């Protein structure tokens, strides 16, 4: 049994399994971000690349994974599962895949932990890299953005395959035998979609209808997790710090020996206050403020609730469930899993989540309406990340829902949209509603207030900012592409003439002064006529 394994080996094995689990989650989630992944090979070992593979660590994902694991390791009966689901603009969601990392009791006593197990885990990760591009959900995730987004959820415990519909298929990525059990990595995926063209979805009335329509864009190519993942803004400032953050900095430098296995030397050192290799993370986070923020945007849909999933998912887990777009107009879609084959395992968000949301709404007066109004033409077709990009400035509330809705199709009127038609000013409709703001900025400018802007839009349910990916806009040389540029400069400041105070006053003044001006012009009519004649 385990007495055969000496304590050093046991410790190493536990560490390998833990980091393997974390890396597995990273690979899966990154494969569903909707973008191509590229990491560099390095001939000299950096010591922080587990399993000799350059796999970036998205901090939020690591955090979620660690939280789900809660200090435990996958063991018999306790599997780590990553659920990938799709959510449409109208709030319908559907589970696409469940990736399971399981352990069974079949032990391989002969195998050497520090050598063979490590290498086989590395091979298994490579296989995972290959397989994640091969399941139907990959192509869906590459096309996400306009009609739907891809979400992930990590849980620990029993695998729940109810939401995958009938006839789901499984693919085994691989197994690695260890002295304490055999690790198996597999994926169960829905196949109904395989019959649908990945280019569009048919609108089917019942539950699984996936609707294509013009939609908001996802801000950051995150598979918006079904739980808010913006624990920190761009940097590390606020937000929840990872517990035992030193784990992530453990150096995995292993030395291998070519001498007989019994003399294997394993040196895994712990680097104490060493910053994790930053290189890889940065490249994934496109280095623009707007984008980095939008990751936060997309993920922080709803209050973070450690609510138990309706499907009875393990209480062990923290199934941070993404609340399907709640909003005044679209009732929350809570689907009970298991009833029918086709019913997706809907994110069960208890109602109070929504209410909390709504309450939070009340405190912020979204300038959504105003903002949109101020730039009517621009936001029509574009994704308005506008408010989103500002939300970053409001870091304090992790639970803040920063929703941005695109003005255009599927846009509901903001709940508290107020028309100022009562004010007798031309274009009063477009005037920013400073008067209505509870936390009116003394400056009177609404446009991209960090705090207020950030919260706007969550009056509306749904949509979340999807990544704006203009065609042919990528430039490998510059980090900033058209999409980024667009997003960054999407919040132009309000035109001063449209700001209510100044606008109202100046317009009123203008109106008053009109008669005088007219009189003056009439006096000089002859001069003007002469001038005009000279032009002809």
């Amino acid at each position, binding site marked *: 049994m385990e007495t055969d394994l000496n304590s050093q080996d046991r410790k190493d094995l536990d560490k390998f399994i833990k980091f393997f689990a974390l890396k597995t989650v990273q690979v899966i989630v990154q494969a569903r971000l909707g973008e*191509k*992944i*590229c*990491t*560099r*090979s*390095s*001939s*000299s*070992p*950096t010591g922080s*690349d587990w399993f*000799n*593979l*350059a796999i970036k660590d998205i901090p939020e994902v690591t955090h979620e994974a660690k939280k789900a694991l809660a200090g435990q390791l996958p063991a018999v009966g306790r599997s780590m599962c990553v659920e990938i689901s799709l959510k449409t603009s109208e709030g319908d969601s559907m589970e696409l895949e469940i990736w399971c990392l399981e352990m069974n009791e079949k032990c391989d006593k002969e195998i050497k932990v520090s*050598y063979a197990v490590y290498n*086989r885990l590395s*091979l*298994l990760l*490579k*296989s995972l*890299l*290959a*397989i994640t*591009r*091969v*399941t139907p959900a*990959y*192509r869906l995730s*590459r096309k996400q953005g306009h009609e739907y987004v891809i979400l992930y959820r990590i849980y620990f415990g029993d695998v729940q395959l109810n939401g995958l519909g009938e006839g789901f298929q499984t*693919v*085994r*990525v*691989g*197994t*690695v035998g260890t002295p304490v059990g055999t690790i198996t990595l597999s994926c169960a995926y829905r196949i109904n979609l*395989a019959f649908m*063209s*990945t280019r569009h979805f048919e609108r089917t009335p019942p539950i699984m209808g996936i609707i294509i329509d013009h939609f908001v864009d996802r801000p950051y190519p995150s598979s918006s997790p079904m739980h808010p993942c913006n624990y920190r803004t761009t940097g590390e400032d606020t937000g929840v710090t990872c517990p035992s953050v030193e784990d992530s900095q453990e150096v995995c*430098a*292993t*030395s*291998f*020996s*070519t*001498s007989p296995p019994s003399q294997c*030397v394993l040196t895994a050192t712990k680097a104490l206050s060493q910053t994790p290799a930053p290189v890889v993370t940065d490249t994934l986070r496109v280095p623009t403020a707007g984008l980095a923020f939008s990751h936060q945007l997309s993920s922080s849909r709803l209050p973070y609730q450690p609510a138990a999933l309706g499907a009875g998912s393990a209480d062990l887990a923290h199934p941070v469930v993404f609340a399907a777009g709640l909003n005044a107009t679209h009732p929350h879609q809570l689907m009970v899993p298991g009833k029918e084959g086709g019913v997706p395992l809907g994110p069960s968000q208890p109602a109070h989540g929504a209410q909390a949301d709504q309450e939070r709404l009340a405190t912020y007066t979204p300038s959504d309406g105003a903002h949109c109004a101020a730039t009517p033409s621009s936001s029509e077709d574009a994704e308005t990340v506008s408010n989103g990009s500002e939300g970053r400035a409001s870091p304090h509330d992790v639970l803040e829902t920063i929703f941005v809705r695109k003005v255009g199709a599927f846009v509901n009127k903001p709940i508290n949209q107020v028309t100022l038609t009562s004010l007798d000013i031309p274009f009063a409709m477009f005037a920013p509603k400073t008067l209505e703001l509870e936390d009116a900025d003394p400056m009177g400018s609404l446009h991209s207030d960090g705090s207020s802007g950030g919260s706007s839009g969550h009056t509306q349910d749904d949509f979340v900012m999807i990544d704006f990916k203009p065609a042919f806009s990528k430039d490998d040389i510059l980090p900033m592409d058209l999409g980024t540029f667009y997003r960054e400069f999407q919040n132009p400041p309000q035109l001063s003439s449209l700001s209510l105070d100044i606008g109202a006053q100046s317009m009123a003044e203008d109106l008053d002064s009109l008669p005088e001006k007219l009189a003056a012009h009439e006096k000089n009519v002859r001069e003007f006529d002469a001038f005009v004649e000279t032009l002809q």
Partner: protein
Amino acid sequence: MPAHPTLERTPSRVAPGWGEAPPSLLWSLTSAWATDCKMNCRSEVLEVSVEGRQVEEAMLAVLHTVLLHRSTGKFHYKKEGTYSIGTVGTQDVDCDFIDFTYVRVSSEELDRALRKVVGEFRDALRNSGGDGLGQMSLEFYQKKKSRWPFSDECIPWEVWTVKVHVVALATEQERQICREKVGEKLCEKIINIVEVMNRHEYLPKMPTQSEVDNVFDTGLRDVQPYLYKISFQITDALGSSVTTTMRRLIKDTLAL
């Protein structure tokens, strides 16, 4: 001594050390030798049917997927017989003519080498004018030093053969369907490859510093695949090599 992969235009040589035997002799003896030589060698065969312009990408997808699993980071030997391993990066490659994305090792040198031989294969297929049947073989081998005057033996331990059937399509609609179908087929092939890889069957033992070049290709800058060879054949419907094509290729080579 960098062990660069030998890109072979001549019919696939399973038996190194035969020197430059005349092609016909090689061909007739190949099958017999192959049986002996491959006794302990794992052999996997994959088949794909693709349109002409998809040949390259389909082959690259398969070859890169296999090499992804059969490459490690660069070894750095330290004293006492220990070594550390570099890091292998990966990148996604989208196919232009197939609805498919594959993962390859981030190594431009390796990519170039594969593209070169796959390009030659594609050209050979195109020029063969035959039924559009061909196959590529990716063979992993170990070198075994022999005493002079015998040259080193190459002992294969794993051979991947990809048989290709090129179809010609008439309409754009068919081509579009083909894009998707071939994409799905390649997905299945990748799953097959991964299945084989995860059986954890024989792999060469990790070599000492002096032996590393007998097991790995240490000539690349950033990654270290196992020693491999890629070769291809254009076959006719019967599965045997097309003599005329090979002769033409050899003549062209000599004519340079």
